[in-house]
């Protein structure tokens, strides 16, 4: 039975790796629709493509969809996402080009191209790798990846320098702002202290807090009289009993487990 051409509002487009490939994968395409509009992916001109095979590049998607009109940009993501920001730092980018099966967003120049794309043939197989635009996979791709892994020391150094000049000015600014705000009360009269002020304060960390709390507790326990009031005696007795019970239960559980684990069963 033939595959239906439309599913759930998606157009089904079969694609093959090359002409001689036997079995196609299916791209599912649909107009991009989101509640929050993004400037890079305007919903009227953007096509969402699902199930993009691992060997399919931006260039090959461009090839497929130029039939419907000029393509402005192609985005590839691991998961459907509406946001996108250009990676600023080349050497410290979190996201490398996603591998595996992905989703793509194809942004056309004109809105009518999207409609055209929705009417692409779902019978005719498109091949991704052609004579003019061969796709690299396997050994050739890995060799290519290896070559592209080169890092230029000068470029890296200048990127680091750029980051640090920015970082230093940011830190400086923070310091400056903190000094400015010293002893300046806000509308409710509170004063914010920081470690950059004239009289630095200790950082507010969990460890610090813990220290203070234990110190307080120790102080209080020194002052406290033990086993003085009747209720204290009663409470400590009750606690002892509870502790005993808990230990007994624990031991029981442990013995049960040991019995279960024992391989030696003489009777």
């Amino acid at each position, binding site marked *: 039975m033939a*595959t239906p051409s439309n*599913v759930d509002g998606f157009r089904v487009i079969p694609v093959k790796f090359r002409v001689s490939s036997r079995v196609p*994968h299916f791209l599912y395409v649909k107009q991009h629709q989101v509640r929050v509009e993004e400037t890079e992916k305007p919903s009227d001109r953007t096509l*969402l493509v699902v199930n993009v095979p691992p060997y399919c590049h931006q260039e090959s998607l461009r090839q497929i969809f130029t039939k419907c009109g000029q393509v402005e940009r192609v985005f590839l993501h691991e998961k459907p996402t509406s946001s996108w920001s250009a990676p600023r730092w080349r050497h410290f980018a979190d996201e490398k080009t996603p591998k595996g099966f992905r989703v793509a967003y194809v942004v056309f120049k004109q809105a009518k191209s999207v409609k055209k794309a929705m009417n692409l043939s779902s019978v005719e197989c498109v091949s991704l790798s052609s004579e003019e635009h061969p796709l690299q996979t396997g050994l050739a791709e*890995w060799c290519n990846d290896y070559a592209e892994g*080169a890092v230029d020391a000068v470029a890296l150094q200048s990127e*680091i320098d750029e980051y640090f000049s920015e970082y230093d000015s940011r830190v400086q600014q923070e310091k400056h702002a903190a000094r400015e705000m010293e002893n300046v009360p806000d509308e409710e009269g509170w004063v914010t202290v920081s470690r950059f002020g004239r009289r630095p304060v200790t950082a507010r*960390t969990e460890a610090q807090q813990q220290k203070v709390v234990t110190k307080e507790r120790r102080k209080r326990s020194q002052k406290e009289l033990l086993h003085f009031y009747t209720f204290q005696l009663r409470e400590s007795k009750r606690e002892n009993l509870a502790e005993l019970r808990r230990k007994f239960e624990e031991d029981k559980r442990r013995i049960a487990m040991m019995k279960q684990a024992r391989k*030696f069963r003489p009777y």
Partner: protein
Amino acid sequence: MSSYQIFRHALVALADSKWDEEGIHLHNETQVDEHRPTVIDHHMYFDVVFVDSTGYCNLTANLSKLTYHQARHEAQTCMSFIDRADLDSFQDLFMQRVSFYRTFDYVIRINSLHNRKDLIKKCVLEDRLMDRMDHYGRALMPTVIETLEKGMHGRLVMMAFELKPTEEWSVDDAPPESYMDSPFNLGLLVEMSSFDGLVIRGPPADSTEAERFRSFWGEKSELRRFQDGAIVEAVTFDGTSVADRRRCIEKIAQHLLKRHLSIDPAAVHLIGLSFDSLITWPTQLPVTCHGTGEEQQLDVIRVYDMLNKLLREISGLPLGISSISGVSPALRATETFPPIPVSVSFGEIKGDRMVPQADTVCPPFIPSLQVLCHFEISGKWPDDAEAIRRMKAAFQLRLAALLKKENLVAIAYPHCTLVYYEGYVFRIVVAYEKEINVLKQVRSPDGMLKLVDSEEATVLERDTVHLPKLASAIHGLQQQNKCFSSVLRLAKRWIAANLLFDYIKEEAIELLVAYLFVCPAPFTVPGSAHCGFQRFLSLVANHDWNVFPLIVNFNNELSSKDLAEIQTGFTSIRSQFPPMVILTPYNRTSAIWTRGKPLASILQRMALLARESLQLLDETLSKPILEEGNFLVPFLPALNVYDVIIHLNVSKCPRGYQAVQLSPDTVYPPALSANKTVKQLPVTDFDPVELYVNALRKAFDEVAMFFYDPFGGSFVAVVWEPNAFKPQPFKISHMQFKMIDPSSKGKEGVMVIPNVEAILEDFKILGEGLVKSLEIHSIKPAI
């Protein structure tokens, strides 16, 4: 006295006894009986003396000296374990079946002797044969043992004779052939420091003993002058590699038994070296010493030490180096196949490094050896995770520039520096201790800084704090025990050969083997790869991971109180731990080496495979005729359980020479040429097979599991994931590699299923140039 106390006393008495020299008796000496023989009289006729209350009957009359020594040795070992808190001594001492081949480091097997009657005549042992009721083995044994003990003096801790139950036969029949003549086994516990010595120094040439020494060793004995000036009789054996030296005891046994008992050398075998072939370098490899790689490992460590020195002497870094630790297995001699030095560059020159090319010969596999470099703490380090990353990269750049000044090939990357040094590539990684804390810091809404465990911080802590500690503990263990490294390498080889290597962390395997050396109960510390490997299999097969964590108590750092605490902590929160739990003094409460890997199913499979392998080995060893080929069987995986087998082009697998069975197409790395200077960084860490499997996993992780042998495997085995094959409703986020189920047109709407035909084609497309063919057993999961 409690029964335990009586048992303990009996053991102590046996452990300290000397019944072969000063026998004991039970009779009352105040009763005078002039006919009663003294203990000394008994010693004249018996090896071991323990006289009963009458004073006439030696209870141990039929006990051979060797068996008595073995019992005494067992008592001594038992005593050393019985008080240890880190062992479940009852379980280990009483509940485990102790196999002969797992107890002894080496076993000398003497096969059926065709000339046994002549032998008895020659040695004038007719009386003894009659005493032993025509059991030739038992009649000849004392002579054989006496000869061997003399010849192997100083090499052995103990020798023991394997006792086998005698089979029954009808009174009317003659005893079966197997009774009179079955192969007999002698177990050897060797002295690790001296058992493989190539030279036996005899008495000075002019002394009276020289004649005796000469007549004992025969033509092997020759007059030699040693470096200290002494001229003595000596026996020498040839051998260059460590592997050859281990054969020494076999050579001694064959020579002496031939000389004194005319036993054919072909009938004398040393069992204990059968697995060496798995970690032996093929002769085509350009290494100086074709042994089992011990020499190569020492060479890697030697070069690493040189690099270490160089790094410490380097000047011009903004901060001093506080510590350097090599964390790659090769730097603690535990890599199954240590790297081979390469100097010839392969591929195309691009800037300061070589780049592989798809259409030419695949460059040899050069692993980079990771070295962690901690710098001194300074207030100038930034306290922001992103900034620390940049700062570390700046350090890498500076380090690479300084190394270049030393005329080394060094390239900086944001995360590491690769440096080519004396034939090896090292990966130097800058680490900063505070980074872990910075990564953990989270500011809560009320402005407080909290430390929260994050995935990234945990991984960083494991790799920069725990790994160096573990590496040095393992390296220490390796230096104490000569054969630790070979047992470990075999263990890794076995797991890899069974295609499970990347489903378990390498450190976990190292800890499993380390446990055998730290807690060898009920045995002594393994002295050969053969017995160590069998014990490893038995540990994997029998450990109950659900109830007990495996605690590797390095240097006895954990006291019995600590151990009890760990055990109770473990029991109460078992479900929060991964299926396999290995704890050490450095990670008492968290199973950092087994988190995430292995999965319960993999652990179960490993145990099953270990059980089967062990059974197979036991069968092979119990057969009278030893078939060396059978020892390889546990290392050959059964492929019929997998759904698809992807066969690879062996000529494109640079690690092909590490395979269990070599193929004729295997490529070997080229020889090291001494006078060629390397100007470009060779192709590093480029293993097409690994890259292929990674690409497959990245794309088809949800639909299948991929198994392969990183050590020269020439195929990838695939198992379909049953859950992925259930028809699912159409959903954007789950449409990868799916097609519309043509049969679904019901009420539930359109359903989708994996596009198996296309996936199979993708297997070929993704590995173009590497994949040879697909062998499809099933296009659906078995269940």
